[in-house]
C-alpha cells in the first residue's frame, strides 16, 4: 500500500465521505444524456469558479473608495505585474458566464427539463439567473468610471419611480443623498459578500436537486411526462440503460469547460481588460454614458417606450416576466418534453432571442443619442453648397450653428435622433418646413424662440435645396391654384 493511499485512508476513516462521494459520482444517468447539449450547466459552474478566484485576486489590490477606486484600477492595469490580465479574465469571465447561463436556460427550457419533478430546480435556476445579473450590475459599478457613475444615476432614476417608496429606495441604493463613497462601499459589499453568498447557496441547492432527482433524460417525441408514472419510468430508464456519470458522461463536461476557459483566456489576452473609462467626476459632463452590453437591450427599451408608458412598463414588466418564469413549471409541469412537439416553446425562445438581439443591436448603435459634437465637427458636404445663393448658404450656417446636425445627419454624418435631411425638400413643402422648425413636434424642440425670422427664412431656403438631382421638391398644389397658374 502506497503512502498516499495510507494517508487517504487515514482521512477517510475520520471523514467517511469517500464511499458516498464515489456512489454519487458513479450514479447512473440515462445513456443519451452524455451529450454536448448537457455541458452548459457545468461550464457555468466552472466559469463561476474562475470568477471567484480572479475576484479574490482583484480584491487584494482594488480599493473600494470613491476617491481611490479609479486610480487602483489604473494601477492594476499598468503597474502591477499581470494586473491587466486578471482584470481581463474577470471581465471576460463575467460575459461568458452570463452567456452560458442564458444558453443553459434555453437548453433546459427546450428540453422540457423544468417539468415534474424538477420544478424547484428550475425555480432555483431563475434565482441563479437573477443573482448572476446582480453580479454583472454590481460588478459594473465597481469598475468605477464615468459609465459606472452615470449608470448608478440611471439605476437611481428607475428606482425613484417606484410609487411611494421611490425616494426611500434611492437613498438606500446610494447609501446617502448622492452617488458617492457610501454608494461604492455598499456595492462592494453586495458584489463581494452578499450576492456571491446567495449565488453559492443557490448553486449548492441546484446541484443537490440535480443529484437527488437525476439529470433530465433526453426528450423523445411522444414520451409524455405524467406525475403518476414519471418517477418509475425514469428509474427504469437509468437502471436499464443507464451509464455511470463518472466517467461515461462527465468527460464531455470537462472537455467543454476546458474550451470555455481557453476561450476566456484568449479573449483576455487578445482583447484585454474592460476600461476603466473616464474618471468618475460628476463635473466632467462631456460624456456619453453607456451601460455594459448585457443591459443594452434595457437602454434601448428606455429610449423607445412612450414617456407615459415607461414607468409602468419598467416597474411591472420585470415582475410579470419573473412570475411567468417561476409559474412555468406549475402550468406546464406535465406533457411533451421534446421541442419537436412544442412549437409555442420554440417560438417563445425565438421571439425572446429576436427581441433581445434587436434591442441589443440598437443599444450598441444608440441611434437615439444626439451626436453632441456633430454641429462643430461634421462639415456640410460641398455638393450641398455649390451654386447656392447667399441666403441658402447662410441657411447652411444656421443649420450648423443651431446644432441641428446633433440630431439630423447630412450625407451619413451627424445624429440619427431625427430623420436625415438629405432629401428633406422632397418630403416637406416650404410651409411645412417653416412650421416644423418654428413649432417643433414629433420629438423635435420648437426653434421659434431661438431663431430670428431672418435665420428661419435662410434655414428653410437651404433645406429646400436638399433634394436628389432628378427629384423635384415638394410643393403646395393649392398655392399654384390660388395664383391661377397651372401647377
Amino acid at each position, binding site marked *: 500500500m502506497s503512502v498516499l493511499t495510507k494517508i487517504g485512508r487515514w482521512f477517510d476513516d475520520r471523514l467517511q465521505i469517500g464511499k458516498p462521494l464515489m456512489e454519487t459520482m458513479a450514479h447512473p444517468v440515462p445513456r443519451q444524456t452524455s451529450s454536448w447539449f448537457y455541458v452548459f450547466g457545468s461550464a457555468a459552474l466552472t466559469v463561476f469558479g474562475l470568477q471567484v478566484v480572479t475576484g479574490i485576486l482583484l480584491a487584494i489590490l482594488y480599493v473600494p473608495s470613491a476617491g481611490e477606486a479609479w486610480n487602483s484600477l489604473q494601477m492594476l492595469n499598468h503597474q502591477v505585474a499581470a494586473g491587466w490580465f486578471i482584470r481581463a479574465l474577470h471581465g471576460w469571465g463575467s460575459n461568458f458566464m452570463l452567456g452560458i447561463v442564458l444558453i443553459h436556460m434555453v437548453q433546459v427550457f427546450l428540453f422540457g427539463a423544468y417539468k415534474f419533478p424538477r420544478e424547484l430546480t428550475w425555480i432555483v435556476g431563475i434565482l441563479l439567473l437573477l443573482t448572476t445579473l446582480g453580479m454583472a450590475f454590481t460588478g459594473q459599478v465597481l469598475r468605477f468610471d464615468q459609465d459606472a457613475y452615470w449608470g448608478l444615476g440611471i439605476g437611481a432614476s428607475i428606482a425613484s419611480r417606484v410609487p411611494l417608496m421611490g425616494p426611500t429606495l434611492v437613498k438606500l441604493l446610494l447609501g446617502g443623498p448622492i452617488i458617492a463613497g457610501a454608494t461604492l462601499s455598499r456595492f462592494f459589499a453586495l458584489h463581494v459578500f452578499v450576492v456571491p453568498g446567495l449565488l453559492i447557496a443557490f448553486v449548492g441547492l441546484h446541484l443537490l436537486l440535480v443529484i437527488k432527482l437525476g439529470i433530465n433524460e433526453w426528450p423523445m417525441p411522444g414520451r409524455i411526462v405524467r406525475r403518476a408514472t414519471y418517477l418509475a419510468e425514469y428509474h427504469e430508464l437509468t437502471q436499464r440503460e443507464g451509464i455511470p456519470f463518472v466517467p461515461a458522461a462527465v468527460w464531455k463536461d470537462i472537455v467543454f469547460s476546458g474550451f470555455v476557459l481557453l476561450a476566456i483566456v484568449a479573449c483576455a489576452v487578445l482583447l484585454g481588460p474592460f476600461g476603466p473609462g473616464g474618471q468618475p467626476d*460628476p463635473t466632467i*459632463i462631456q460624456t456619453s454614458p453607456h451601460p455594459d452590453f448585457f443591459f443594452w437591450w434595457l437602454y434601448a427599451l428606455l429610449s423607445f*417606450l412612450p414617456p407615459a408608458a415607461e414607468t409602468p412598463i419598467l416597474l411591472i414588466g420585470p415582475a410579470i416576466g419573473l412570475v411567468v418564469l417561476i409559474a412555468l413549471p406549475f402550468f406546464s409541469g406535465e406533457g411533451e418534453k421534446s421541442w419537436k412537439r412544442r412549437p409555442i416553446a420554440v417560438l417563445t425562445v425565438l421571439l425572446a432571442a429576436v427581441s433581445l438581439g434587436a434591442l441589443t443591436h440598437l443599444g450598441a448603435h444608440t441611434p437615439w443619442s444626439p451626436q453632441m459634437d456633430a454641429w462643430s465637427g461634421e462639415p456640410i458636404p460641398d455638393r450641398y453648397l455649390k451654386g447656392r445663393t447667399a441666403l441658402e448658404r447662410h441657411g447652411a450656417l444656421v443649420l450648423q450653428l443651431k446644432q441641428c446636425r446633433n440630431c439630423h445627419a447630412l450625407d451619413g454624418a451627424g445624429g440619427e435622433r431625427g430623420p436625415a435631411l438629405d432629401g428633406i425638400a422632397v418630403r416637406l413643402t416650404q410651409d411645412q418646413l417653416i412650421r416644423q422648425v418654428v413649432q417643433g413636434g414629433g420629438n423635435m424642440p420648437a426653434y421659434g424662440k431661438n431663431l430670428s425670422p431672418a435665420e428661419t427664412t435662410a434655414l428653410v431656403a437651404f433645406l429646400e435645396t436638399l433634394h436628389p438631382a432628378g427629384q423635384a421638391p415638394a410643393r403646395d398644389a393649392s398655392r399654384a391654384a390660388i395664383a391661377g397658374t397651372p401647377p
Partner: protein
Amino acid sequence: MSSPERPSRRGFFLKAGLLLNGIVGVVLAVPVVRYLLSPLSRERKPGYRSWVSLGSVANFPAGETRFATYRNPVVRPSDGETATIACWVRNIDGARFQVFAVNCAHLGCPVRWFPQSNLFMCPCHGGAYYADGARASGPPERGLFEQRYKIEGGSLFVEAGDMPTPGALATLSVRRPSCPS
C-alpha cells in the same frame, strides 16, 4: 420517559432556550436595522440640506447660462471627486436666476447647454430642454430639476443636498424665483 401530554423538563428548557435566543435576536435586530437604514435617518440631521455658495454673482452674466460646481454639503472623506456636484446657472435678467441640476429628468444623465440654439441636450436618450428648463422634446416627462437659490453679500447660494431623481418630486424644490417687480 415522560408521557406525551406532560412536557418534560428538557423540553421546557429547550423551548426556554429558543425563546431566549429569539429575544436576543430581536434586541440585536434593532441596532442592525437602524444601521442599515442610516442613509434614511441621515436627512434628519442638521446640515443635510444647506446653502452652498456658487461664487460671486458677477461670474454669472445677465442673459447667459453658465456651468457651476459646488461641494455637496453632506460629504465623507472617501467621496473624492464624486462629492463635487455640477449645475447650470441661468441669469435671466440680472436680478432673477434659475439653477438647474445637471441631471436629466429622464434617467439622470448630465445635460449639456448649447447657447447657440438655447437648448439643453442629453447625451443618453436625446431629451432636450429650453433655456428656462422646460421640456422641449424626447423621453423626459418634465422639465429640468430646479434648485432654490438666494443672493447674499454678492454671492449666489444654492440649496443642495440630494441628487434629484424623477420619482422624488415631493423632495424637489420646483419653486420658481418670485419676480421682484
